[in-house]
């Protein structure tokens, strides 16, 4: 039995972009199919709002349809799409009521004069399997990411969630590679602390039962 070739009938990203630059109208639907999930999930991770993410996805697709032919090709096409998605998501966030942010400095590791950590560190890394798919853990993780300051959050989402390289993230956000690395490290430290608090409470709750 032969399986259909999934690449047949679909253009590669490179070809789609070429068609777009040349004003070939037939490739728009494929372009939308290729990018709408990336646009929606990035926007949803930044805004955590279904309706806003739908709006952002539509706005970005419209830009691709109307201005795609002006794309210069100076950076990767996907970097351009990510950049306009981030900007459109920030516009949505700006129009919303501001929620007080947690200072990242308050959550980063603290040390005594000898350079030892104040925090009593528990290793919960072995016990995450059973919790991973629970709704409670999911909500806690989403809330922790939502609490990250914008600069660290966007780097964390692009680098660790989307899996882009430091180079590409630097290019999208127009920041240096050391800045990408430093923001990512701070984001991970912040999230580790938030999750540690949660697993600590979870363990205590389980032991009380």
């Amino acid at each position, binding site marked *: 039995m032969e399986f259909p070739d999934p690449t047949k009938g679909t253009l590669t990203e490179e070809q789609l972009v070429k068609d777009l630059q040349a004003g070939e*109208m*037939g490739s*728009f*639907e494929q372009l*939308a199919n290729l990018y*709408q*999930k990336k646009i*929606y*999930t990035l926007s*949803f*991770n930044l805004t955590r709002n*279904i309706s806003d*993410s*739908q709006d952002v*996805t*539509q706005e970005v*697709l*419209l830009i691709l*349809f*109307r201005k795609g032919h002006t794309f210069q090709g100076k950076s990767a096409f996907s970097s351009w799409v990510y950049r306009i998605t981030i900007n459109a998501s920030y516009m949505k966030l700006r129009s919303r009521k501001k929620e007080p942010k947690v200072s990242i400095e308050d959550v980063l*590791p603290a*040390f005594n004069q*000898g*350079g*030892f*950590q104040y925090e*009593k*560190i*528990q*290793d*919960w*890394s*072995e016990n*995450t399997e059973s919790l*991973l798919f629970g709704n409670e*853990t*999911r909500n806690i*993780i*989403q809330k*922790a*990411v939502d609490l990250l300051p914008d600069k660290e959050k966007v780097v*964390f*989402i692009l680098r*660790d*969630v989307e*899996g882009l390289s430091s180079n590409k993230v630097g290019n999208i956000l127009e920041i240096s590679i050391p800045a990408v*690395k430093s923001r*990512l*490290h701070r984001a*991970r*430290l912040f*999230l*580790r602390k938030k*999750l*540690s608090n949660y697993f600590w409470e979870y363990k205590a709750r389980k032991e009380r039962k």
Partner: protein
Amino acid sequence: MICCKECIELLYSYLEGELSAENETSLEDHFADCPPCIAFVNTYRSTTLLCKNTLKTNDIPDTVKIKLKEFVDKNKPDVL
């Protein structure tokens, strides 16, 4: 020997495999004597994995997919 503070500063580069051989040895010597820092590394790694697995599964809801399809059909430029 490096302290916990220095160990955590070097952690990112260590996990990326970007440390010099000398710094890597210092860090591993520290780990050998410091179970809390080993716990820290393990939970730092797990944090990345947990967050990625959680946020990656945010798919487009079916109702939104339908609306986006309608939107694309309505707004895509006409094929000449």
